[in-house]
């Protein structure tokens, strides 16, 4: 670690360090990427690794506990047929978890896409043009920050419909503030760089400068915020579901599964623990990945 040296020894003779190698050496990046990768693969390969329809009810086989109840407590109905048991409608828990990953990832990803677009647009505009544009956009950001996300989201979802689309859009329309704030300052920094001044001097058009000079330079910051916001969106969806206004059944989102099993915390804790762990691993992975990307994209690359 090279710290605090006003003249950090520049080692230009050293072999150029491959980012891949640096990435692989970064522990939280590796763990985060592996966790998220695993969840994405499970979600993508859902039909191949499950042998039940996640929506197929089997009311005669409700609430079968996971396989380990057969191992440790000789539970009669637990078994490999339903390795993680069944829910209160007899749907296979493993299948619902795996298909649920799709829903949770979809919400996280789409909400982040929407918020990322809005936030980046506003942030880059504010940072690039400055002056009145900045003043107006800063005001919009402050207004947005003054509105309590979960409350406004709850109210909107309650007034409209709690469909997947509405929830995703509402979260996307509410969670752009961090993008805007960070993109704004990143753009301001990039704008004052010599190459931008040079581009202006040779008469490049504004859209062209933004596209070719500014955006590539704020991409790293974007990725970091995107991971944070993705985790936030997933967490908010879970909270909305918990309060009864999230994704509607029978969609198997992890938040909804947690919410459906909340009363089971006393007597069948596995029902809330399994989606809880899944959500925890997802959020942990995204956060670790975000930390990793931030470290790796920072100049000097702290380990």
């Amino acid at each position, binding site marked *: 670690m090279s710290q605090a040296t006003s003249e950090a020894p520049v080692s230009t003779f050293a072999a150029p360090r491959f980012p891949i190698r640096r990435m692989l050496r970064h522990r939280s990046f590796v763990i985060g990427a592996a966790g998220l990768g695993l969840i994405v693969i499970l979600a993508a390969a859902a039909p191949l690794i499950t042998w039940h329809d996640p929506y197929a009810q089997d*009311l005669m086989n409700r609430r079968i506990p996971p396989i380990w109840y057969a191992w440790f407590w000789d539970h009669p109905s637990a078994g490999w047929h339903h390795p993680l048991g069944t829910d209160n409608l007899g749907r296979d828990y493993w299948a619902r978890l795996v298909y649920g990953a799709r829903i949770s990832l979809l919400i996280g990803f789409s909400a982040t896409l929407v918020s990322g677009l809005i936030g980046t647009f506003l942030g880059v505009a504010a940072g690039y043009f400055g002056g009145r544009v900045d003043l107006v956009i800063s005001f919009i950001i402050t207004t947005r920050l003054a509105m309590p996300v979960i409350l406004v989201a709850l109210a909107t979802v309650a007034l409209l419909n709690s469909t997947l689309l509405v929830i995703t859009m509402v979260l996307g329309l509410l969670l752009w503030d961090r993008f805007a704030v960070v993109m704004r300052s990143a753009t301001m920094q990039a704008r004052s760089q010599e190459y931008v001044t040079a581009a202006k001097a040779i008469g490049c058009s504004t859209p062209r400068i933004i596209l070719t000079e500014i955006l590539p330079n704020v991409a790293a910051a974007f990725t970091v915020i995107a991971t944070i916001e993705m985790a936030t969106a997933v967490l908010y969806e879970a909270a909305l579901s918990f309060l009864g206004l999230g994704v509607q*059944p*029978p969609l198997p989102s992890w938040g909804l599964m947690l919410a*459906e099993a*909340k*009363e089971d915390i*006393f*007597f069948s804790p596995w029902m809330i623990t399994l989606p809880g762990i899944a959500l925890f691993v997802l959020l942990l992975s995204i956060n670790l990945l975000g930390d990793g990307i931030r470290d790796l994209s920072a100049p000097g690359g702290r380990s």
Partner: protein
Amino acid sequence: MNFEGLIAGTIAGLVLAAGSAQAQQAENKLRWSSTVSITAPDPYYNFHREAMILNGQLVWDTLIYRNPQTGEYEPLLATSWKWIDDVTLEFVLREDVKFHDGRSLTSKDVVYTYNYISDPANKINVQSNVNWIKNAEEIDEKTVRLNLKSAFPPALEYVASLHAILPDGFFGNDGKAGSNGGLIGTGPYKFDEFVPGSTMQLSRWDGYFDGSPKGKPNFSEVEYRAIPDPSTQMAELLSGGLDWIWYVPKDQAGPLSTMPGVVVNPAETMRISFLSYNVRDMEGGNPLQDIRVRQAIAHAIDRDTIVKQVVGQGSTAITAPCFRTQFGCQQEVTQHPYDPEKAKALLAEAGYADGVTLDLVANSSRDRAWVESVAGYLSAVGIKTNVQLLQYAAASERMASNRTHLFMGDWGSYGINDVSALLNNFFTFTPDDMARDETVSNALKAAAATIDKDTRIENYDVATKRIAEQVYWHPLWTNPTTYAHQADLEFQAFPDENPRFFQVKWKD
């Protein structure tokens, strides 16, 4: 409570907090809870049974009392009553009844109550409970007449269960409960404190009149606390912070009953669940206008299995659109037994062999597994549903504005043992009426406009049969209510979903 009060309360609470848990029985206090937060202390500006009935009957009394065991009416505030004609009821009041502030009950109080609640301008919450009343008039100090707009056969049902008698001027001039003389009634308990949205504290009223069928108060205090999360309620019950809860989720009832010191009691209620079909014209067409689709849906649902596996103990599958003990409930109607093959065939016949997608709105305060299991059976025959769980008001709005195909709801008839309290709400061109069938509506209105039993039966026969034959409603099951309470509490449940706390007591 102001902020200083909160601070003082915190400090006091900190001192008391430790040893309070098990000390309740010694204090002879009943602590009960439910998910709803009660925002008005009186029984009229409320939607919730908890305030309208459970608490209402502790603080106030009705004119007459219906014995839940025998089903007979007994004297309460009125010693006698009679029908003068089809639209006039006369009551003679007891002599010895006092309000919590010591003054005696007179005709003025009864007249004030009925005239106040029946005036549409005063906008009490459930208009259907009072909108058949024209007015009340004082005959003498102890005699009162109730004038009806038209014949209303179940009138006494309402009088006995929902019309708590308030003291004269209770709402003052500003419409605020208790603004004139406090939150007083004649009931066995009096209000100590009411915190909107949170708690109600009652204590025994030693001056409660002798000979009331409700009996003298058994507890020195009764406390209600709103706890929105059922898991929290169970935790409170298990840790000794509550004595009585209800609507315990079905799947928790079994394991909860194995816990020491806790009794779980699933009981059937008069509340029935049903699936109601929208047969009006809708934008982009409405598949439900084809009766075969409605029949297919009816045949697709295995009520017996759902009842047995999901709804649980205390519930029965029903085939008629009403509760069996209700007056006018005709059981001999067209049946639609579970038959998925027939359902598929009917769908194919109707031109939906490849399936159809429908909007389904359901009441979010019920167990979501119920609607999910129904949706599951529908999807098994090729009917996809977009399920929306909404509070009743919001769901009702969807029905009124023609924005849903299906509504899965339930209705408890306010414990009124008469079909009019159920079907007249849904089939007489009310906002919730999605069938809009003249025949049904006319029959129901005719039945409700007379006290002649035969005419009534005849008309209800027409209505229920047509509803079943045209498949406007698909009756599902009776809702159970699962109560859970401390084992040393003596509690009996009745199908009218009315826990009578005045009868509850600690075991000796």
